[in-house]
């Protein structure tokens, strides 16, 4: 396993309130989540000597209200003992978590806190509105066609998937409904009190065929945080550790236009289908080689769902089923909380809210620790968690025992 001699583990988690247009500023939501995670881990702010986040997106540039940098948080909360910190420049908070795991394994710090602070943008949509009648530079190849938003790249990827393998919309309804059931059991979830039926899914308004409203994640204000340490220190803490037994980062495919999160939809790159396959496959390759585990050893998975169909790409690329099989794999109750392979039991981005993957990491830890309450799955010895997609992001296998 990764860092065999003194394994790294997640030992505490914390959430802020999650909502839309919250009046509490983002920096204070970050304070709430980070202090909650520290208290949950049973340590004090003086113990914190590592800090990391992915601070960019969805908007800037005001530190503390539109994003929360390491400097802002460490300074504001008075963490005086930080010896290691990182802000990942591209991708997803998962890569910040991966870097924290490496820093802990190298004894560069002892207790690292990692958070993701997401603001609900004023206009209600992450997508920039393009009103200009001039389309300069690379936008000359997109805006004249009415191509702008990221869904204009993900919807064709999902369309290709459906056409190649024979998947239909009702297959993906299963995922949206299963995740909503999890959210209904998650007191932190944005949709904690709102059920969703397959009929509602099938009748939802279309955004870009074949993606409907419920295939899109729900933007929120909210922050989630985790505390990580090593086994030697974890044994003295209040909760059982969720060991990081495997780690992996997305590779970069040759010959496909590189995507950045801010450039989504504005560039040319139409081969998102292959890019997502490549991301899931490369993360998977490292997960299995670093953990020594196989997909059949894993009991559940928290798979990033910026869009519902992302989950198909993860399931196939990570090796939980074969290519073109995911849409059937998720049927017949398999992915429900009491199913044989639960997925996104907290509700995911679709129903807990778009914490940009951090919610997935918190849930994976809680399940492995046996602390998921009414969402607790029967067996959680090894749980996979991945967040990102395109050519970015990282994942881990969290495990009950160090293998």
């Amino acid at each position, binding site marked *: 396993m990764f860092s065999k001699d003194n394994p790294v583990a997640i030992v505490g988690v914390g959430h802020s309130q999650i909502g839309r247009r919250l009046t509490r500023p983002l920096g204070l939501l970050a304070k709430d989540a980070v202090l909650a995670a520290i208290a949950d881990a049973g340590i004090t702010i003086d113990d914190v000597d590592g800090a990391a986040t992915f601070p960019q997106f969805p908007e800037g540039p005001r530190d503390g209200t539109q994003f929360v940098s390491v400097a802002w948080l460490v300074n504001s909360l008075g963490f005086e003992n930080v010896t290691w910190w990182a802000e990942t420049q591209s991708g997803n908070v998962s890569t910040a978590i991966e870097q924290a795991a490496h820093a802990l394994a190298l004894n560069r710090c002892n207790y690292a806190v990692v958070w993701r602070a997401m603001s609900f943008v004023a206009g209600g*949509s992450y997508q920039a509105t393009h009103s*200009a*009648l001039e389309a300069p530079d690379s936008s000359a190849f*997109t805006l004249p066609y009415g191509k702008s938003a990221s869904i204009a790249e993900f919807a064709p*990827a999902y369309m290709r998937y459906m056409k190649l393998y024979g998947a239909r919309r009702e297959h993906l309804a299963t995922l949206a409904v299963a995740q909503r059931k999890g959210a209904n059991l998650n007191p932190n979830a944005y949709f904690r009190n709102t059920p969703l039926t397959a009929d509602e899914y099938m009748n939802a308004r279309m955004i870009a065929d074949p993606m409907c409203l419920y295939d899109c994640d729900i933007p929120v204000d909210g922050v989630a945080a985790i505390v990580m340490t090593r086994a030697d220190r974890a044994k003295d803490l209040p909760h059982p550790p969720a060991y990081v037994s495997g780690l992996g980062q997305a590779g970069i495919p040759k010959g496909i236009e590189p995507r950045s999160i801010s450039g989504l939809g504005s560039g040319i790159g*139409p081969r998102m289908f292959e890019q997502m396959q490549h991301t899931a496959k490369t993360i998977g390759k490292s997960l299995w080689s670093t953990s020594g585990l196989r997909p059949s050893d894993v009991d559940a998975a928290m798979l990033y769902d910026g869009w519902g169909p992302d989950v198909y790409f993860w399931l196939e690329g990570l090796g939980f089923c074969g290519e073109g099989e995911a849409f059937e794999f998720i049927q017949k109750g398999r992915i429900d909380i009491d199913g044989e392979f639960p997925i996104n039991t907290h509700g995911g981005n679709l129903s807990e809210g778009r914490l940009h993957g951090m919610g997935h990491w918190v849930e994976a830890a809680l399940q492995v620790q046996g602390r998921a309450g009414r969402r607790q799955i029967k067996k959680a010895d090894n749980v996979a968690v991945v967040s990102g997609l395109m050519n970015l992001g990282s994942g881990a296998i969290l495990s009950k025992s160090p293998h």
Partner: protein
Amino acid sequence: MTASIGKPVPVPTEIDRPYWDALREHRVVLSRCVSCGWYSQRRKMLCQECHGEEFTWAEISGRGTIYSFTRVHQTWVTAFQDDTPYVLVSVALEEQPSLVLVTNLLGDYDFESLELGLPVIADFEPRGNEIILQFRLAGGTDVQ
């Protein structure tokens, strides 16, 4: 997709100029590596296939097949708000199928009948002082 007034107009960079000049003559030219023949829509700094640094502009057939497509119901491009729903098509080019270009799909067709692999052919739509590349289904379907 007939009205071009009020739609975003391409403002080509100098380096892309040959692509846009050719479209004005209803020809499709792409950047092509001199040493190995690899195509790209825009000129690259280096060729990913052979690391060559010399490129030329070469005309292609304009033929390709549908790689994927979508129909946009909610748009973030203001000038297209009255056009929803409209179709975006990703086209794998005959000369190099790994090169996929995105345009609208012109002509009369039933959206539900679109499939991957259907043959398409380049078409040309005036837009401001430029002409933009478009595609339409090849063979048998109505051309507007």
